[in-house]
């Protein structure tokens, strides 16, 4: 498998159910990527440069649809012209079948041309445009792709040295904390990076399974300090995004591992979702479910630094969402962290007889404190979890900024440019 050759794009599509065929997009597109027939208006993935010029002029909102696609499988003009409705987003499993690892980032992301210049008034909101592609200035330099198809070694073999369930037994889903040890083989990692796992066996087409990507949940000096190991937070997948029964190849393989089992690993990956290392830098972490993995890594690293007495700590603030507290990985250990070390805010969306509460609700409640942090150029924001949380979280940040008397366009642009807002949603 050659992951580096799987080019991932965000394909720009127009929703034929909402589009009124007014021609505004076609008229305004600077690269003539939009065309139409008597049935549909469509975007040519070959020509579209994701400049977003067509987004705000569209009166319907139908223009603002994006699909993560392997470039070679991008929907053709002919396909799009035949649509009555948009096809659903490819599931992580379908993408994996095309060789796209979970969480793979497109080579170019749609950007709003209004950034970084501050503009008056509001333009159409697109949360992804605020995500940084640069790491914080004080981030440590991470190694990437030491093992993989393009590297000298195609994979590294790790030994399972721990596998514990970190959510309560008896609930629908189990989430496991899995520790992999690399022995004497080099596998240097940083908090916020991820690794790939090669599940054994073959798929229905008798081809080897593609890699599954997981965020590292342990700090740079190992799950156990001073050991060459990493930990992962993995939720067993028993349903696809539509709720149909499906057994996730990677997650079930990983969750069922026994101590002593061997696992083929590739990576590490990730050059941007990295933590700041300078004194007094603040970290605001916003996550749901297994999106907590990189947050655990960063929190633990800061905790160890603090314990060593060598680090002049900044503030840590965590917004952590799950359906119920029983489904929240690491719920117990989190409770034991000192309050003056980390400010933890939970949001549970399915607690019986309680109104639904999402991370953005918790953020809004803490607007006063978040506002102060947002004003501080030493504050870095990290968002990790399901894609659906991203917009709400960034909108909440926008509201916090505005409540604090800041112009979101200016702050948002700075967060992006200075590598201070990192979005990793899937």
């Amino acid at each position: 498998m050659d992951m580096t050759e799987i080019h991932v794009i965000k394909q720009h599509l127009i929703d034929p159910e909402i589009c009124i065929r007014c021609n505004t997009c076609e008229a305004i597109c600077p690269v003539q990527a939009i065309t139409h027939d008597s049935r549909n208006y469509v975007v040519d993935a070959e020509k579209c440069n994701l400049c977003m010029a067509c987004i705000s002029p569209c009166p319907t909102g139908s223009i603002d649809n994006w699909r993560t696609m392997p470039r070679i499988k991008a929907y053709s003009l002919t396909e799009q012209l035949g649509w009555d409705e948009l096809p659903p987003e490819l599931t992580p499993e379908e993408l994996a079948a095309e060789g796209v690892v979970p969480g793979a980032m497109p080579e170019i992301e749609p950007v709003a041309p209004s950034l970084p210049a501050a503009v008056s008034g509001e333009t159409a909101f697109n949360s992804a445009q605020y995500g940084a592609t640069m790491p914080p200035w004080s981030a440590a330099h991470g190694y990437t792709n030491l093992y993989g198809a393009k590297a000298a070694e195609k994979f590294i073999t790790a030994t399972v040295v721990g596998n514990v369930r970190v959510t309560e037994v008896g609930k629908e889903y189990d989430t496991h904390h899995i520790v992999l040890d690399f022995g004497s083989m080099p596998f240097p990692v940083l908090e916020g990076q991820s690794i790939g796992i090669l599940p054994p066996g073959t798929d229905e087409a008798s081809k080897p399974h593609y890699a599954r990507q997981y965020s590292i949940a342990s700090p740079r000096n190992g799950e156990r300090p001073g050991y060459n190991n990493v930990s992962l937070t993995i939720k067993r997948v028993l349903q696809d995004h539509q709720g149909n029964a499906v057994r996730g190849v990677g997650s079930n393989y990983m969750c069922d591992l026994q101590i002593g089992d061997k696992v083929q690993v590739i990576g590490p990956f990730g050059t941007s979702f990295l933590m700041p290392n300078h004194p007094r830098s603040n970290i605001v972490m916003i996550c749901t479910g297994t999106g907590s993995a990189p947050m655990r890594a960063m929190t633990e690293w800061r905790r160890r630094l603090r314990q060593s007495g060598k680090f002049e700590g900044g503030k840590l603030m965590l917004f952590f969402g799950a359906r119920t507290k029983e489904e929240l990985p690491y719920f117990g250990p989190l409770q034991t962290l000192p309050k003056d070390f980390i400010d933890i805010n939970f949001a549970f969306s399915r607690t019986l007889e309680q109104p639904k509460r999402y991370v953005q609700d918790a953020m809004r409640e803490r607007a006063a404190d978040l506002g102060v942090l947002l004003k501080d150029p030493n504050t870095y924001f990290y968002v990790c979890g399901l894609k659906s949380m991203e917009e709400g979280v960034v909108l909440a940040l926008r509201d916090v900024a505005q409540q604090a008397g800041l112009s979101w366009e200016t702050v948002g642009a700075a967060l992006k440019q200075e590598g201070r807002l990192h979005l990793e949603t899937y």
Partner: protein
Amino acid sequence: MSSINYSEKIPNNVNLSEDRTLQRALEQWQPNFINWWDDIGPEGSTNSDVYLRTAVSVDPQGWAQFGHVKMRDYRWGIFLNPGETDRTIHFGDHKGEKAWQDIPGEYRANLRRIIVTQGDTEPASVEQQRHLGLTAPSMYDLRNLYQINVEEGRHLWAMVYLLHKHFGRDGRDEAEGLLERRSGDANNPRILGAFNEATPDWLSFFMFTYFTDRDGKFQLCALAESAFDPLARTTKFMLTEEAHHMFVGESGISRVIQRTSQKMNELKTDDVAKLRAAGVIDLPTIQRYINFHYSVTIDLFGADESSNAATFYSTGLKGRYEEGKRVDDHALKGQTYKVLEARNGELVEKEVPMLNALNEVLRDDYIKDSVAGVERWNKVLEKAGISVKLRVPHKAFHRNIGALAGVKVSPDGRVVSEAEWNASVGQWLPSNEDRAYVASLMGRVVEPGKFANWIAPPVMGINRQPVDFDYVRFN
């Protein structure tokens, strides 16, 4: 008025602050415009802050600035699409010559007539919508109405700019006339018939924005091809706003249909009386509204055979829809086109010179576009499992202009006797009872996120705001 900061108050890309003549003309006209707006603009809207999209420049970022503003403070800008250097005329007798930045004297009268006719429709729309705000089915819809209103007002400015800039004293007189005529006024009506029809309820409003603003799209597209470059560039920019109007109509009707389908499925009935008792608009009534608005609108394209249309085309004043994309000689001499006429109680096609049939060509392009949208409404029904199909009536149905005026034709295209027409017209066009029923549903709903019973909420809010966003703040 001399204290106006032109670029702030009237965002423009026509160098207004340096053009003293134009400033003086607009300074005289602008107070009258504001007075007209106060008299005839939306009723009871003065104090509200409305989430409006304002254009401040013609680039993609500049023309969609959102924020809460009072309608009276909306910045009616003057915008021309960016010009192309060395644009050449691409149709008619002057094909290949350089596009005009000034009006050739011999075409002055015709161009003035075209611009005045187009301009006259814009304030007419505002006037027709004056009372609708009082019966809006939701705050979201109210905001859309207000947005359309200010944009129609801006389109009036756009045409007035051309009149002031290029037509001297005549232009100023015509610009005044635009503020003096009134939609539906027996003594001083608007120029085109459809713009004197009342828009008394929101179903009519949605039909108007779907069908009649679509006429606007096609007329503006034809003018956007003009050899007179300022007209071409002005109308090109107007098209970007016209799109929103059509969206309001298309999605509005779609939501009405969706709500009706829900009730039909819930009550398991297509019985008109039961559906009316349940407070939704039955499909036969929607069909009759379609029949009415469609037929009135296709009259706007003018007579099927018109020597004016031929002249406008040959002289380069007004092209065809998507003229630049067509592959023919763009002169159309010696070519023919089929138009309908009634002969011996039957509709028959006859070939006429294409140049004289250009109104019909534009009408047919419009029809194709309209039908496609009606098919999208049918998809809503189809999804709900309802087998009824809505359709536009025959082109010859209920026509008052051209060769088909006066011929009685059924919606399915049969020439019928006066007696059959009279017996069936209640099935074909909205009756007084229909209108009274629809009117009875028009109660004002303006709580954020709430919708009148007869209409479904939209799929998404404006500018990706939530549906329950406070689009209008009543102060």
